[in-house]
């Protein structure tokens, strides 16, 4: 814990939904849910309008549909669009200080003490944060952010959440404990629903209650590591530094199937696509990996993982696939898999390359960026659903797949986005960030005048 409130935590408000509302004027002020839109999808982000009806991130999309009124937009995520805005925000943070720890696409810590800011008083940092939030709004076409500034990462994060959206909370040094005391124990990192329920049985609801618990009691309930850290965190003792680069420890890709898959040949095809995606992500994070893991979730949700460690790090999709195949052979799939994942860990910056034999079947190069546009979307509770369907979903074949929210262009009507599709038709609303709410038109799904487009410029 520092003596000044010099750690800033910035969180973009309902980021995915906010980008959608910016780019799609007809959705402004309306409930919007972004996430998996299939039968097993999960909400990644709900707009504040949708939250009024009880939609939340990590909620099954089917439940959000039940809760939200007709006219709520359910959109598939547009990774490219989110990354484009995120990059601009992160650049602004870097102008404030060289030490920026990006936690995810919409969240980062900034070490203000390492920057040019000389006035680290409560008023000084508040003014700097105000300016930052204004800059973000101007540079991103109106996205809003919330910030918390405090003497530790934990308090800064709690602060950014206190007055969301568009909140700015500075917790002055020395006021940490009293700020924390009345809050629910759930604000503390590491206290999820289970721990909270357990604590409730001991009459602990707020951080103040937790502060009254003896360390020995917490340790006897939760074990040395967890109990000990609860005791420390309840007293706002958090000495974690803001670190510039959070090194990825693992990279993975997974796929939830629309229906359980029994057919090994379909699983093989999935595995190929997952291995390629994993290799592409590995390449993006400029790393190689030694350990390859597969994850198989059975129809009854029981989940198995199997892994194998190579002698030398690899970045080769073919090598990853070889091992993943071998591992999948050891998994019973006779009752059908609901989810399949491929992951790599044991990352390093170098790779012992392999010789290429004459008759070796090489996997095609990793997918070009843009096709694999979910690559950088960070893990969230909905992490496994914000992906385009893999080969298992394609077995039906058919015309190009349009998905709700997708950016498209029509040679005659200009830029727009897919409003809905099905039965060989696709409905497009022609509007953009700088236009008025636009008109809706329906085309044949294979209309040659209609094509996939880049995210619009706001």
């Amino acid at each position, binding site marked *: 814990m520092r003596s000044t409130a010099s750690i800033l935590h910035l969180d973009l408000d309902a980021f995915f939904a906010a980008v959608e509302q910016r780019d799609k004027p007809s959705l402004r002020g309306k409930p919007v849910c972004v996430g998996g839109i299939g039968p097993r999808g999960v909400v990644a982000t709900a707009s504040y309008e949708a939250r009024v009806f009880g939609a939340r991130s990590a909620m099954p999309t089917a439940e959000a549909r039940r809760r939200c009124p007709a006219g709520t937009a359910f959109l598939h995520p547009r990774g490219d669009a989110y990354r484009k805005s995120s990059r601009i925000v992160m650049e602004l943070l870097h102008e404030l200080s060289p030490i920026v720890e990006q936690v995810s696409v919409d969240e980062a810590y900034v070490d203000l003490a390492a920057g040019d800011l000389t006035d680290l008083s409560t008023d000084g940092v508040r003014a700097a944060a105000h300016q930052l939030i204004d800059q973000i709004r101007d540079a991103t076409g109106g996205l809003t952010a919330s910030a918390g500034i405090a003497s530790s990462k934990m308090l800064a994060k709690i602060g950014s959440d206190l007055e969301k959206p568009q909140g700015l909370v500075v917790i002055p040094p020395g006021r940490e404990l009293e700020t924390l005391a009345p809050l629910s124990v759930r604000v503390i990192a590491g206290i999820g629903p289970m721990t909270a329920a357990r604590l409730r049985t001991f009459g602990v609801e707020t951080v103040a209650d937790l502060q009254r618990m003896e360390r020995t009691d917490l340790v006897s309930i939760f074990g040395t590591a967890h109990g000990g850290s609860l005791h420390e965190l309840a007293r706002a003792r958090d000495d974690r530094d803001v670190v510039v680069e959070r090194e990825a420890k693992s990279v993975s890709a997974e796929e939830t199937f629309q229906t359980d898959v029994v057919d090994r040949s379909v699983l093989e095809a999935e595995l190929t696509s997952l291995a390629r995606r994993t290799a592409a992500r590995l390449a993006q994070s*400029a790393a*190689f990996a030694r350990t390859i893991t597969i994850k198989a979730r059975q129809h009854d949700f029981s989940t198995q993982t199997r892994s194998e460690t190579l*002698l030398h*790090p690899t970045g080769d999709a073919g090598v990853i696939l070889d091992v993943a195949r071998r591992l999948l052979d050891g998994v019973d799939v006779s009752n059908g898999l609901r989810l399949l994942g491929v992951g790599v860990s044991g990352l390093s*910056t*170098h*790779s012992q390359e392999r*010789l290429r*034999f004459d*008759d070796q079947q090489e996997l095609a190069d990793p997918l070009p960026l843009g096709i694999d546009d979910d690559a950088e979307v960070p893990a969230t509770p909905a992490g496994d659903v914000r992906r385009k369907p893999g080969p298992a979903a394609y077995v039906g074949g058919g015309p190009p797949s349009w998905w709700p929210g997708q950016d498209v262009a029509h040679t005659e009507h200009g830029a727009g986005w897919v409003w809905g599709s099905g039965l060989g038709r696709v409905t497009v609303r022609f509007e953009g960030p700088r236009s008025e709410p636009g008109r809706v038109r329906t085309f044949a799904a294979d209309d040659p005048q209609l094509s996939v487009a880049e995210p619009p410029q706001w």
Partner: protein
Amino acid sequence: MKLVVDRDVLAEAVTWAVRGLSNRPPVPVLAGVLLDANDEGLTLSAFDYEVSAKVTVDAQVDEPGQVLVLGRLLAEISRSLPNKPVTINADGHKVEVTCGSSRFSLQQMPTADYPTLPTAPEPTGAIAGDVFTQAVSQVAIAADKSDTLPILTGVRLQIEGDKLSLLATDRYRLALRELTWNPTESDADQVALIPARTLSDTAKALGASGSVQIALGSAAGGEGLVGFEAGQRRTTTRLLDGEYPKVTSIFPTSVDTVSVIETSALTEAVKRVSLVAERNTPVRLRFSEGQVAIEAGQGDDAQASEAVEATLTGPELEIAFNPQFLLDGLGAIGTSFARMSFTQPSRPAVLSGQAEADGDADESYRYVLMPVRFAS
């Protein structure tokens, strides 16, 4: 059975015969060594279904016969005996081994259950023992030590007339040794895939002999077997089954940069510098006019660098290798100078030997090494 044999002769023969025996044999009798006293002397045999070994030594046979005793135990006993004649005498269910005043009584194992040793095929040709040992050791280092692709744990032996080639690869490097030998038939044309570890052991065990006969092929029940014979020692090994990857395109067709370095100087330097290269991290080699600079470690880790004199033909080049792979190759070329040929830093490098700094390249042994790539 009763016989008298020289102590050193016995010790050497038993040790050689049982060297391949497993500590946990698939069937108990396979832990045994079969002693056969006959007109020719004493024949010792051991077999574990993969490898068989058979050696005949001079002995004074008083009474012919066969016994089976625990192989490793007999080897240890005979090595520890005093240097005096050894008497071996079968007596009921026991075998008495006496030497001077030492006396051992070993349990006989049932010979009826002992499998028949495979018969080696007819010799395909012969090669000098020391040449064979060196060639095998040069190639076996590149065989795969893990068993993810069993075929790569073997050495590919190919015979075409008087040309014999040995090749192994673990996908990261490839070693190829080509030499001439004396085939029995001038049109011999065969390929065999021999487990690298067994081949290595066999080559070491037979290398001291003047000439090693190699028997390959389908004749005389030798299907799936290779036989080696040197003097009174005969051994067979079961071959690996499967299709060996085709590797002809691995050798670069063109060369851009060539450097010749004194082998021992480069070896020592790489060993020193790689002290800071933690497990599997690479050493970087920068070839420029007159020298190669070797470096390892970066960032916050320990770092080391050293320069070694080297000639350069072609453009300068920087390339990185797994230090152990590089050292394996440098240790295998067996010449005073190492010749390294490159195309690009991302393409395989070829290491070969040459006797003198400005002499001709000796291409009879080539070690192809895939570089380490850094993330960018």
